[in-house]
């Protein structure tokens, strides 16, 4: 999308400190901080340990989904299927446990594999079948949701204890928060330290250059979508764990939240740009607004108005900051 227009103006990276660099790379952070300070002033309930843990739990699903989407967007694609894939994965896991009688941990594995598999299908369709990823994953959005409904016959299925564990606490710390942190570390590690991760930036930034440099572009794309499917499955299992059941309508529409988190976090839909830390911030922006509006008991009609404005303003901070810095 209007690549040049909507991309960050080039930064001049010489001799900047690490902190400054982090700030520069994570634009929406300023927006998030402003949002938090505003909520802290507006309501004493916001900055309590308990509420912060709640936010941690609530952000876990969308953030984990969004990690997968980050890979895809960095590589220049889009994944609309993550919400449906999350639902399908948890449903398959639930079905293997409840109806097929598989041991709980195997059922959990089956769920993850389901996500991986749907991701591979997305990847094959877009890398080898040459479908635009928007179309390939839109098709999967519909197919995966349909299969979820077929498997469940539209009814929730109870989940295995292993999945339910994902929704519980270890001591004072909620498991979703632990999973979130681990997933962020893994995703960030893959993106920054592995060859395939670095290659994603090349494929998204300039696919022609990537190809002419001998990168296996198609295999990288399949990996990217496979990872997205895997993270979607993990998100789906987290959600099922929290609800103690796999819901047929779980995560409907979450793809938009996940993509929004990635873009708020500074990634460009044109590809080649994006970081996991940014995605975490983007997801937090979305969750903190909703949490705050609930705390403030803003009526539900006005909530939507406010959510929209806050998203625009949070990203606006980033734009403003970049513009003043580069003159």
């Amino acid at each position: 999308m209007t690549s040049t227009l909507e991309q960050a103006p080039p930064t001049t990276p010489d001799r900047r400190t690490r902190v400054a660099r982090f700030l520069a790379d994570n634009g929406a952070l300023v927006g998030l901080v402003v949002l938090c300070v505003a909520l802290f002033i507006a309501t004493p309930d916001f900055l309590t340990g308990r509420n912060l843990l709640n936010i941690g739990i609530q952000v876990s699903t969308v953030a984990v989904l969004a990690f997968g989407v980050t890979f895809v967007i960095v590589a220049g694609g889009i994944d609309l299927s993550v919400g449906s894939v999350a639902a399908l994965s948890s449903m398959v896991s639930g079905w293997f446990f409840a109806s097929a009688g598989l041991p709980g941990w195997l059922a959990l594995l089956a769920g993850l594999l389901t996500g991986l598999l749907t991701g591979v299908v997305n990847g094959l369709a877009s890398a080898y079948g040459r479908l635009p990823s928007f179309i390939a994953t839109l098709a999967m959005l519909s197919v995966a949701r349909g299969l979820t409904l077929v498997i469940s016959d539209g009814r929730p299925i109870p989940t295995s204890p292993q999945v339910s564990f994902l929704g519980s606490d270890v001591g004072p710390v909620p498991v979703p928060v632990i999973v979130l942190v681990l997933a962020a570390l893994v995703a960030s590690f893959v993106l920054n330290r592995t060859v395939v991760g670095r290659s994603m930036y090349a494929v998204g930034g300039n696919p022609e250059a990537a190809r002419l440099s001998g990168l296996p572009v198609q295999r990288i794309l399949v990996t990217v979508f496979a990872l997205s499917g895997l993270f979607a499955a993990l998100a789906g299992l987290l959600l099922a764990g929290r609800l103690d059941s796999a819901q047929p309508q779980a995560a409907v529409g979450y793809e938009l939240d996940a993509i929004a988190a990635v873009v708020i976090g500074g990634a460009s839909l044109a590809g080649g740009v994006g970081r996991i830390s940014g995605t975490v911030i983007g997801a937090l922006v979305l969750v903190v607004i909703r949490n705050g509006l609930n705390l403030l008991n803003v009526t539900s009609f006005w909530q939507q108005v406010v959510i929209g404005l806050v998203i625009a303003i949070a990203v606006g901070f980033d734009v403003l900051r970049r513009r003043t810095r580069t003159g």
Partner: protein
Amino acid sequence: MTQQPLLTLERVSKSFGPVTVVSDVTVHVHAGAVQVLLGENGAGKSTLIKMMAGVHQPDGGRVLVDGRPVQLPNVHAAEQLGIATIHQELNLVGSLSVAENVMMGRIPTRFGLVDRRELRARARAALDLIGLDVDVDARVGDLGIARQQLVEIAKALSVDARILVLDEPTAALTRRETENLFRVVAQLRARGVGMVFISHHLDEIAEIGDTVLVLRDGHAVAEVPASTPEDELVRLMVGRSIDEQYPRGTGPVAEGTEVLAVDGLSSAGSFSDISFRVRQGEVLGIAGLVGAGRTELLRAIAGADRYDAGTVTVRGRRLRPGDVGAAVAAGVGHVPEDRKAQGLVLDASVNDNLGYATLASTARMGLVDFAGQRRRAEQVAGTLRIRMHDIDQPVRSLSGGNQQKAVFGRWVIAGSTVLLLDEPTRGVDVGAKVEIYELINAITAGGGAIVMVSSELPEVLGMSDRVLVMRDGRIAGELSAAEATQDAVMTLATRDVAPAQP
């Protein structure tokens, strides 16, 4: 050279749809030798080397490596056989670091993970080879096009290649970088690397080439030693001789009115306190080394970038900073240095690309003048000899030199009287260059004014009425046409003056 060639393209042909662009051509690449490919824009040079690089597959004929027929279905296959290629167009990822771009596809790993230290070290070594002094951690997108070209070269050099293919690597370079490159080429030759070299700078051919294969319309027309006189090469290439390479005739109108005035123009980090005037009928050349700030200056004048201080005045009217539309309305035309990123809408047709600057001005009641547009486009394409098979074909499928002509042609159609040219003849063949120079003459004869930035010093010297030399974002000196010699310019360009920025 009786030894077996490292690489042979044997009687290869290539067509795109109904158009045959290479037909029955044989090329040999020998160890320790530089095979030059010469031909007009669109003659098929790049297409030929893309068949060596595994980008295109020949429709007919064979590719032989060490005498054995091979298949090169993709770039990777070519690399495996030790073939490294510098393509005519830049192939870099702007959002990645210099180091990652240099090592792309060959990132060093330790325990399966990116070995950053090794990555930087190897990239550094490759950059040192051609004498490019940039931070290996800098984003490539932040570099000017000349430095990007050097990164591209370093990328190919860092491959331990047996065969190195260089498609117009010097088009974006000044003499100094070119010399560095040739030094490396000489070293590689000594080590037995076989090379293919393409350039429209004929003087470079004798300097580093061994044999020259001349192409015309996709056919091989002659194979001659690189020592062949330039005139003869030109004749072989274009089928006629060119009387005068730089046909700059009369200078500016002596008392011509001032057309462009730049006063105290400054932009932090790019250039500082630039003032000059250009009169009716004048060609002002701007020379300088890579990174001297010439491009930024031209962009600021054209309204492409904002600036911190100073004014730009065209025929007495001050131009609003950062407003290209206002500049265009005042008769300013700007040929940017990077045709692919800044000049062309690659997937749009040649016709559309030629018409963007005149889309609104030729419209009636907001409706596009299609017939007139096509007429104008066909005419200018004829004048500039843009080689294509259909004016509606996407400009992406034109050869590099012809794409460059399309960017120039846009402003010819617009009737611009103040042309800001940034490397206007990059990649353009000798014949077509003369056409562009003739157009420059026509524009100045009609009372227009030209500012020309070029890294090709002979072009600056041959076509300018006056030369400004920039160094570190400042004007280091001004030379009249008579004073302007290669030495005088280089002295100013490299003399130590206080840098613009602390």
